[in-house]
């Protein structure tokens, strides 16, 4: 079929004027404001552009007029068909809602040999077997996971140090994999471990069951050992040895590492990043410390967000230099933010999305069967705050979990589209709601510390 362009008259300014599409705006300085639409498309414009658009003072002859149309802030007779594109972008942006909870975290034991300053878990000593997940709890947790409508599930086994309860892990996988296969669901399995107890037998098992490993690497030896003490003071050596052996058996792409930023880390962004390059990682996630568990009991680790931002920006400069030299290194948090700002794609990052990922995208099953909306909710419970305990796998159905008062309360603060302040904020499409974080830091689930944190950064 032959196709041809529409006649030039179809591209002429509309005589009927324009109409507004939903957008928000924010003054950046005395000369510039930013306009952001529902899908995150943005335009930097002279101050007063939003007001002129609302008051119908814009003319189609102005340079900014085509940009406002192209970015979906206004539309006229000749652009209305593009609104289908806007709906498609909106659907893409919220695709993460589809399928409900995908990530299921099972806490197989509270036992751990490390005594990390920032640990979010109320760790127990290595020999206290009563803090392992019993089989009936494990079976009920797996059953609840499989009831999730999502066709693609991720089972994360963490703790504590999960390899201390390896028999429990084997039992969980022995029922989870056939269960998922029976229902036609894909199942990814990840063990989050400090690798201190990683034997060759465990590695062979991981290979045969196609299990990925995720570990902690806080930087070079002096930082890692200081942040993550263990008997013998050799947590760095153990982690590096484990990473190398796991890569040999499972493959390089089956082993991931995460770092946590402590007070000590703040002074050494370049050394931490260089360690990741030295260990042949191509991603690094410069993460601030979470305000839970031992992180706030221990005053050695805490710091203000401004100090973290200095660390983050210095680290980012160093990462740019490394990339310029030809080594591909991605900072994950930057990637998430840029993906949110520059594309309609969702990121799958549950800590910064709306509706919040708590419960909707992730569920945590504690060793005793208690179900929490997020891992951080479990940390709060270990500190005596059970606000986000949704139920127990032994006594509550999935329906009861998702209609529990705790979950309903959480949902009320889970959408930044309806939160005070956030509902008007231009940066809303890039941000998220994190009721658990806000509850922990501000004793309110709906405040917007995240927004304040981000808007304080120069655009």
């Amino acid at each position: 079929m032959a196709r041809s362009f529409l006649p030039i008259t179809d591209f002429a300014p509309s005589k009927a004027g324009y109409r507004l599409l939903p957008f928000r705006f924010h003054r950046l300085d005395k000369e510039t404001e930013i306009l952001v639409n529902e899908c995150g498309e943005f335009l930097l414009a002279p101050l007063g552009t939003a007001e002129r658009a609302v008051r119908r003072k814009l003319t189609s002859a102005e340079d900014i007029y085509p940009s406002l149309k192209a970015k979906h802030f206004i539309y006229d007779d000749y652009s209305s068909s593009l609104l289908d594109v806007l709906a498609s972008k909106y659907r893409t942006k919220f695709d993460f809602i589809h399928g409900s909870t995908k990530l299921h975290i099972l806490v197989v034991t509270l036992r751990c040999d490390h005594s990390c300053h920032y640990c979010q878990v109320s760790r127990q000593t290595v020999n206290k077997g009563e803090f392992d997940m019993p089989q009936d709890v494990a079976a009920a947790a797996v059953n609840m996971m499989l009831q999730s409508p999502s066709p693609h599930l991720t089972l994360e086994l963490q703790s504590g140090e999960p390899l201390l309860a390896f028999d429990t892990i084997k039992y969980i996988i022995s029922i989870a994999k056939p269960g998922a296969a029976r229902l036609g669901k894909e199942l990814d399995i990840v063990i989050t471990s400090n690798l201190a107890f990683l034997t060759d037998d465990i590695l062979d098992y991981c290979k045969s069951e196609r299990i990925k490993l995720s570990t902690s690497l806080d930087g070079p030896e002096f930082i890692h050992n200081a942040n993550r003490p263990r008997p013998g003071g050799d947590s760095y050596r153990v982690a590096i040895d484990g990473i190398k052996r796991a890569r040999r058996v499972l493959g390089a792409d089956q082993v991931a590492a995460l770092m946590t930023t402590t007070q000590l880390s703040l002074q050494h962004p370049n050394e931490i990043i260089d360690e990741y390059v030295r260990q042949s990682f191509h991603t690094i996630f410069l993460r601030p410390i979470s305000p839970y568990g031992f992180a706030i009991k221990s005053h050695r680790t805490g710091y203000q967000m401004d100090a973290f931002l200095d660390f983050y920006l210095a680290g980012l400069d160093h990462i740019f230099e490394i990339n310029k030299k030809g080594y591909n290194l991605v900072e994950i948090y930057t990637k998430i933010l840029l993906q949110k700002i520059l594309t309609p794609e969702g990121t799958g990052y549950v800590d910064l999305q709306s509706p919040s990922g708590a419960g909707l995208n992730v569920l945590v099953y504690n060793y005793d069967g208690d179900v929490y909306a997020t891992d951080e909710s479990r940390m709060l419970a270990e500190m005596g705050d059970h606000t986000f305990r949704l139920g127990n796998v032994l006594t509550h159905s999935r329906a009861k979990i998702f209609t529990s008062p705790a979950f309903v309360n959480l949902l009320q603060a889970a959408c930044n589209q309806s939160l005070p302040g956030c509902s008007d904020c231009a940066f809303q499409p890039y941000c998220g709601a994190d009721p658990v974080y806000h509850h922990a830091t501000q004793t309110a689930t709906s405040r917007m510390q995240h927004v304040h944190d981000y808007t304080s950064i120069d655009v």
Partner: protein
Amino acid sequence: MSVQFGPVEFDDQHTSAIISIDKKIYSKSAVLRACYWFGKDLYCHLKERGDLLEVTVGLRVSSPTLDQPKVRKIDEWLPEIYDALLDSQLRIEIQAETAGVRELIVAKAFAESGVLEDPPPGTFDDPVARSDSKSSDLVRISTRSSE
């Protein structure tokens, strides 16, 4: 853009002020939303008086502390407050004008994902489907203004 406000009354130390706002220009919702953003530094109290909204704004910290060694007088906050009021009113007008089309975009987005059983009514030109209830398409794109 010039915006007319009524007279502003200050207390003796200039730690608080009463701003009179014309209700025909600024809605109560706009004033409340503007006040919300200053909650960290200022307290706000809103009172209706005839055709006016009276907003009392005051400094939460009125004298220097170790955490906040420099304190701005309430006068220095006024330009920001006026800007925030204007922005809030504009946001409300944008939301009011675009509510219908926003609902339609969302409905269309999720209708095509198979979430909705019935197609949403309306078109982008007529989001509430006043003029064309017979359209069988999910969304009809009109080339004419409905105004």
